[in-house]
């Protein structure tokens, strides 16, 4: 989305709005983000008089989609759904989008309602999301809304391992592969699709199938052109780390990630990414040193919690449980300051689980 928002083609539309960039991990934004949807990136239009969101777009978007989104006048049901979605009310939003679908049984308005519905369903129970998207997505035109729905479907299916092998999950997996082959799928879409498809093969206990997905994922990442800016570099590094830790090729990616850590000198996550690779190849001292460098880069709360959790995992492997406990406690302190309630709870639960697994 960021690439589309900053594209030349989009600039002429940008002047209609006061623009605000909000880092979800910045404590300054706690008030603004209270009771907000926890799905990123997200673009919202807010009426400054009522302070209510009137439109919301979560996930990836092409420039053309964003222009249509900003220019368009949605019907009442979509507008109502967007307002609810922006506040994180997935079930209320889904109900409104269902009404929009009833008003528009086909065409672009229908497809947009469906991709918004997919976002809303992701906020609720995964099995319901799987069932709905497996039935709704196959008939969609193979354009970008279909890609968004396929991404959401893969994510929901991966979140419902008890459904592995069911007809609905098989359908969503097939649609995920279809989406991967579409020219309208963006780079970020493809990364998410590979993640979902990999998880689904693992949940099906199909290790060779999962390995094949991981290999294709890594091949795709490796054939990206050189990054044009820091955002692209960060996104590609993250995808590379995720891919090589699946294929077992972490060692090969270390030089690139070390170079990125030097180039992105203020980015704590650049240190965390290279620490993950060191850990994957059992270079524990190097991994701990990378985390320490990350902690010196003024990390925000989520970043701090992740860095401390990573160093505790390293210390645990080094048979240093007391140091691991100290770092997990520091991570929990940082996690208390995470803005989103769900993200905060999930991060704290993971750190507490990690601490409970340490010897007394």
């Amino acid at each position: 989305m960021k690439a589309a928002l900053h594209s030349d083609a989009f600039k002429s539309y940008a002047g209609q709005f006061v623009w605000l960039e909000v880092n979800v991990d910045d404590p300054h934004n706690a008030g603004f983000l209270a009771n907000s949807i926890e799905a990123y990136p997200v673009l919202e239009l807010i009426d400054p008089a009522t302070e209510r969101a009137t439109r919301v777009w979560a996930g990836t978007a092409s420039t053309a989609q964003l222009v249509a989104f900003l220019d368009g006048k949605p019907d009442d049901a979509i507008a109502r759904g967007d307002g609810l979605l922006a506040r994180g009310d997935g079930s209320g939003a889904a109900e409104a989008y269902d009404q929009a679908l009833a008003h528009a049984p086909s065409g672009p308005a229908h497809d947009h309602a469906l991709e918004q519905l997919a976002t809303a369903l992701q906020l609720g129970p995964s099995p319901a999301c799987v069932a709905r998207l497996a039935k709704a997505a196959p008939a969609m035109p193979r354009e970008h809304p279909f890609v968004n729905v396929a991404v959401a479907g893969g994510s929901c299916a991966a979140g419902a391992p008890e459904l592995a092998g069911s007809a609905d999950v098989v359908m969503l997996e097939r649609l995920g592969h279809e989406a991967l082959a579409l020219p309208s799928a963006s780079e970020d879409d493809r990364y998410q699709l590979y993640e979902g498809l990999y998880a689904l093969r693992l949940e099906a206990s199909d290790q060779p199938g999962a390995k094949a997905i991981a290999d294709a994922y890594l091949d795709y990442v490796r054939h990206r052109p050189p990054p044009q800016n820091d955002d692209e570099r960060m996104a590609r590094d993250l995808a590379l780390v995720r891919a090589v830790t699946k294929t077992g090729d972490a060692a090969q990616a270390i030089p690139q990630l070390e170079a990125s850590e030097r180039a992105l000198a203020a980015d704590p996550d650049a240190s965390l990414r290279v620490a993950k690779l060191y850990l994957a190849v059992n270079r524990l001292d190097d991994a701990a040193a990378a985390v320490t460098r990350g902690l010196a880069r003024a990390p925000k709360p989520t970043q701090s919690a992740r860095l401390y959790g990573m160093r505790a995992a390293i210390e645990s492997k080094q048979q240093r449980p007391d140091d691991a406990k100290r770092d997990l406690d520091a991570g929990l302190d940082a996690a208390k300051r995470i803005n989103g309630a769900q993200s905060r709870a999930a991060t704290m639960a993971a750190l507490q689980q990690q601490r409970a697994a340490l010897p007394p």
Partner: protein
Amino acid sequence: MNPSIYVVATLAIACGSSPQDRPALPRFENDYAGARIAALASHAPIAVEIWAPW
């Protein structure tokens, strides 16, 4: 980090002009209050891009 406005322009939208003709409105980083004041003054909605740094 202190909230910062990184492009400053206090310009009203000309009635009847096309989007392409309109001057750029201000951009803000991590400063909802500032963005809201600017939006109220210019009678424009706020477009908020919420992003995660990882």
